[in-house]
């Protein structure tokens, strides 16, 4: 937690090896899991299955959606907030996308822009309520979760929507199918979307005024306000960001599964938050790193994969996941404590 608060460069002038290690503490858990993955991976005539291109591709595909959610979540949590609605909003947006493309016959671009707008609006409204009415974000977004599910049931008419491609009514533009494709038969487009957004989010958080504001607001709201930082605007905006990310994730979901359902995305919020916190972001706000979040997301995906490759039973998978998450976190705090973390 400690150094992630320091916009890295500010401590560049004096980098002790420890400080250096600490800067990458968030990657530690990932490294371990990957090492373990290689170690325990089943092999077939010499090949390490875990490292096979296809398998790696599968891993990064599987984390695309929660990864995207986690990016937005990082902003909110650093700003000392929380957003439980992202999973439901993902569902809502996947339904909307399917509904508009298939049943309403909208064009691809109008659809996407409307869905994204919806996500942003939904998030912003939650932010607005919790900021203006001073209600804990946990409550507002828990209510938002319910509302989003309700809306998606209405939008879908209590049903799920299959997307079939082609021209004419009831069919979605073929172009949309690309989200399910793999570039060169290998690299999943969904993951590409995640990576682009990840780069963007990392840049915004670490290299812009806005990013600095987010840290300040999360660190000490009053102090930030006294220093002339537009605290309320920042707080509202971070929820707009999670809303945006949830919308994109919903579109990706609809695209890669040709499907929209009000039930999809259930529980994703916990995975997203887990990725963020495992990445070393402090739930009390003011400290965190985007790189850590990305590492956290990949780690969770790799973990699930290696367990399945080894035919670990569902029960043991749950136990192992729990254990390993804790160990990864413990390791991080251990490394941190070396540098006087809180």
């Amino acid at each position: 937690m400690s150094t992630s608060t320091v916009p890295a460069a500010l401590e560049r002038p004096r980098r002790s090896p420890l400080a250096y290690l600490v800067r990458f503490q968030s990657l530690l858990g990932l490294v371990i899991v990957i090492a373990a993955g290689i170690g325990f991976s089943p092999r077939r005539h010499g090949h390490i299955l875990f490292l096979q291109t296809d398998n790696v591709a599968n891993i990064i595909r599987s984390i695309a959606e929660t990864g995207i959610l986690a990016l937005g979540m990082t902003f909110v949590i650093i700003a000392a907030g929380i957003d439980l609605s992202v999973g439901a909003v993902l569902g809502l947006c996947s339904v909307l996308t399917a509904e508009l493309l298939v049943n309403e016959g909208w064009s691809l671009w109008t659809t996407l822009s409307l869905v994204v707008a919806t996500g942003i609006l939904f998030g912003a409204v939650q932010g607005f309520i919790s900021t203006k009415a001073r209600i804990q974000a946990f409550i507002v977004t828990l209510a938002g979760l319910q509302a989003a599910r309700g809306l998606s049931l209405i939008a879908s008419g209590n049903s799920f929507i299959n997307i079939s491609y082609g021209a004419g009514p009831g069919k979605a533009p073929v172009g949309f199918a690309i989200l399910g494709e793999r570039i060169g038969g290998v690299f999943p487009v969904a993951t590409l979307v995640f990576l682009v957004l990840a780069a963007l989010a990392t840049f915004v958080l670490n290299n812009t005024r806005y990013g600095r504001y987010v840290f300040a607001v999360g660190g000490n709201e009053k102090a930030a306000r006294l220093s002339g930082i537009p605290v309320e605007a920042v707080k509202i905006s971070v929820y707009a960001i999670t809303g945006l990310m949830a919308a994109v994730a919903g579109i990706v979901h609809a695209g890669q599964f040709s499907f929209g359902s009000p039930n999809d995305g259930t529980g994703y919020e916990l995975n997203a938050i887990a990725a963020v916190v495992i990445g070393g972001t402090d739930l009390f706000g003011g400290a965190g790193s985007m790189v850590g979040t990305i590492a956290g997301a990949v780690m969770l995906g790799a973990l699930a994969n290696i367990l399945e490759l080894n035919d670990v039973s569902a029960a043991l998978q749950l136990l192992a996941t729990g254990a390993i998450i804790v160990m990864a976190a413990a390791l991080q705090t251990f490394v941190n404590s070396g540098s006087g973390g809180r």
Partner: protein
Amino acid sequence: ADGKPIYKDCGPNNDYVIGFSQANFKEPYREHVNHELERLVKQYPKFKLTIADGQASVNTQVSQVENFVTKQVDLLMISPFESAPLTPAVTNVIKKGIPVIELDRKTVGDDFTAFVGGDNRQIAKEAGQYAANTLLPDGGEVAILEGLPSSSPAIERLEGFKDGLADNAKLKLVAVQPVDWQEDKAVTVFGAMLQAHPDIKLVYTSNDLAAAGAYIAAKQAEKADQVKIIGTDGLPGPSGGIRSVADGQWAATFTYPTGAAEALDLAKKILIDCATSVPRNVMVPSQRIDQTNAKALYDKEQF
């Protein structure tokens, strides 16, 4: 068929790994399917079965199908959580030359080797007709406890039952509420229903758990005798619905067949007998469990 076996590495002497991707481990019905498969597979010494929990998430289940490919299983059995989302993944499995047997729910299109299962809509319709013609010939108020809204089995069973009810104009459907397949939710929701509609004569539930919940609520409202309960799944064993009917708690339940035996038999044909073709659609009929046959069935299976 062009004489080529469905699976190229088939033959009586090899050992085979069968991967089963189960939609989720939440619903007792699915637990039952798993147990059936695990029990019956013992009869096939050449088969090794591994089951993965899709955790009711299409994303997770897709990953698991992909992982089965990585692990190069010889045959994939799958019970898709939802059809469309799993289709591309399953198609990919077929492309890799791995046979696919689908249980309970089909994927979209023809990219599967065989399907074994029942027909939700049909089963629910029979339930509706049974209610309309046998249980409440002179009509009365009816309620439905739906499964998880907008999931396909919930939708199909809801609509099927409504179709069935149409047989009897004197029936009045007064309340429909979702209970997400859950017993505790069923107790609360049906409790409230009985407050709002004290004259409910019959309640249809989309699964046995909900039926059990409905019974508790009815009993607590001291209306256990007034309200006839119809379940779905008809699971065997001391914890199953058949027993509840035998004990007279429910009017009836409709078995939703697991198709485990049929599926394994198909697997044997494909892998060991090198079949060149197998029937694409194996429909396993549902059976109505009511006061006439419940006891017999229950005692029978307690070998």
